């Protein structure tokens, strides 16, 4: 265990978030069993009041979760010189088996919390709260993931020992090694590029069709989720190279640093926004037939689709601009 102020902060926040999720899930259990909108009983009134508390809690969870994601990456980065061979966050995350799983869980939980807030927002717009049970079931499913993240993060920091020889991002993402990172790098750049541009094209085509005609919503949502994954692959595989102008530096974290004008924050914020709003539009598709939602839901979904397209356009715009304007070339463009 390394006692670093940021580690204390991260552990503290994960405790708070887990506690809040646990509390909300326990309440969710009660809602699923006892909710009856038709009743004017005191219990029902008390349940209704408590839904305000849960909405508030989840909004904070979402905000703190985003903060903790970035703080986590930044902390991993600032710890890198405690480990021989680790040159940035990519290497620090590799010092024990919990680094990357925690990172993935943090992203997943960010997206889930965002989706929950979207469902909650929609539900609160209908006078009979048609999604109330569904959204609390969703909360029950999310809760273990948040707790797992907290435990995984704890294990990551607890098992950390300074001076452990680890691979730096130079070797972690270099092609001769095996592991997650190198598999992505090992993927031919052309394939990664093709995947990225194809899913980009698919998302924008279906997105515009959905926005204009209201059709193909599910396909659009699927495409936006795929684009999120593909963007991650593309970032490691080739986009990062243009930012660093180095042919072997595949690290997806260094773009968060000052040397690159903190541009990474914008890139990742755009990606997360794109994923949450795109997937959000999709998970609302089954509820379009609910009478009390039929008026407001299509408008909300279209708005989400628009946000998604704008966010991805920002990501793609910055990346492509960088690729075109950089002196560096992979010999492909």
């Amino acid at each position: 265990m390394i006692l670093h102020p940021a580690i204390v902060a991260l552990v503290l926040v994960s405790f708070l978030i887990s506690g809040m999720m646990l509390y909300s899930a326990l309440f969710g259990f009660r809602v699923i069993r006892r909710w009856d909108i038709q009743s004017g009983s005191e219990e029902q009134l008390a349940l209704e009041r408590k839904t305000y508390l849960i909405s508030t809690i989840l909004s904070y969870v979402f905000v703190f979760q985003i903060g903790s994601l970035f703080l986590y990456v930044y902390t991993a980065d600032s710890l890198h010189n405690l480990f021989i061979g680790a040159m940035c966050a990519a290497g620090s995350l590799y010092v024990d088996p919990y680094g990357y799983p925690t990172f993935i869980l943090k992203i997943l939980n960010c997206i889930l919390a965002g989706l929950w807030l979207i469902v909650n927002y929609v539900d609160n717009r209908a006078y009979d709260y048609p999604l109330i049970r569904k959204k609390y079931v969703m909360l029950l499913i999310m809760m273990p993931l948040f707790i797992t993240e907290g435990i995984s993060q704890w294990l990551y920091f607890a098992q950390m020992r300074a001076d452990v020889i680890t691979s730096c991002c130079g070797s972690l993402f270099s092609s001769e090694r095996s592991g997650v990172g190198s598999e992505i790098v090992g993927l031919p750049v052309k394939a990664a590029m093709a995947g990225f541009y194809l899913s980009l094209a698919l998302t924008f085509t279906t997105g515009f069709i959905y926005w204009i005609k209201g059709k193909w919503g599910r396909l659009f949502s699927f495409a936006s989720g795929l684009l999120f994954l593909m963007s991650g692959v593309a970032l490691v595989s080739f986009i990062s190279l243009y930012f660093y102008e180095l042919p072997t530096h595949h690290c997806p974290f260094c773009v968060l640093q000052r040397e690159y004008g903190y541009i990474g924050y914008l890139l990742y914020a755009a990606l997360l926004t794109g994923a949450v709003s795109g997937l959000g539009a999709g998970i609302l598709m089954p509820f379009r037939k609910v009478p009390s939602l039929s008026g407001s839901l299509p408008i909300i979904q279209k708005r989400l689709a628009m946000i998604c397209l704008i966010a991805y356009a920002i990501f793609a715009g910055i990346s492509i601009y960088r690729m075109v304007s950089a002196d560096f070339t992979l010999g492909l463009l």
Partner: protein
Amino acid sequence: MIRLSNVRKGFNLGRPNEFIAVGGVDLTLEGNRITVLKGPSGSGKTTLLSLIGCMARPTSGRISLLRSLLGHNGFLKDGDMPEVEVTSLPERFLTEIRRRTFGFIFQQFNLIKGITVLENILLPTYPLGKKHRVVRKRAEELLDMFALGDRTAARVEWLSGGEAQRVAIARALMNDPPIIIADEPTAHLDSKLSGEFMDIIARLKGQGKTIIIASHDPLVFAAPFVDRVIAVRDGMIGGEGA
């Protein structure tokens, strides 16, 4: 028109301190009338008023409002039934209806101390998110109408009883609600001010408002322009008069 059928409201149900404030009321209130709920304190008339005014949900029974009485509400689609049943609406939507449909005048005026007259009467407009310029203009018109134009920037604790009461009325009218609800409005006023209050009420009726007052003050329920007096006792409707 407001229709109540078999409306009950209880507190602490199933516990030793169980208390039924309103027990099975059937009532229909007509639009553009002045109705007075008359009864001693503790008779349940205030609870009844809060149920009618969408401040609380009944434990059982139904309350329906005529759609034309409701202001514009985004969540209610046009072309539905002419009446809206508010009983099972969650608080969020009840509030939405309440702030566009009802204006409240309370026994103790309930103005917020430490802020100005203008700020006080602007408060009901905040959740609606209307343009500040627009609501401010309306507030100033209302204040002029109630001869409070020169008290705009005064703090409410500096006001006389009559002025405080007129500010409370102005606040109730801020969102231009079709129905005005007043709970014991004259309890803290002398006869002269009570008379002035009833004159204002008569004027509002002339403007097409529906007015529901809970009071046991003869100056109120015996006023000549009151259309209907309903006696309330032990949470039940008793006799009626006019």
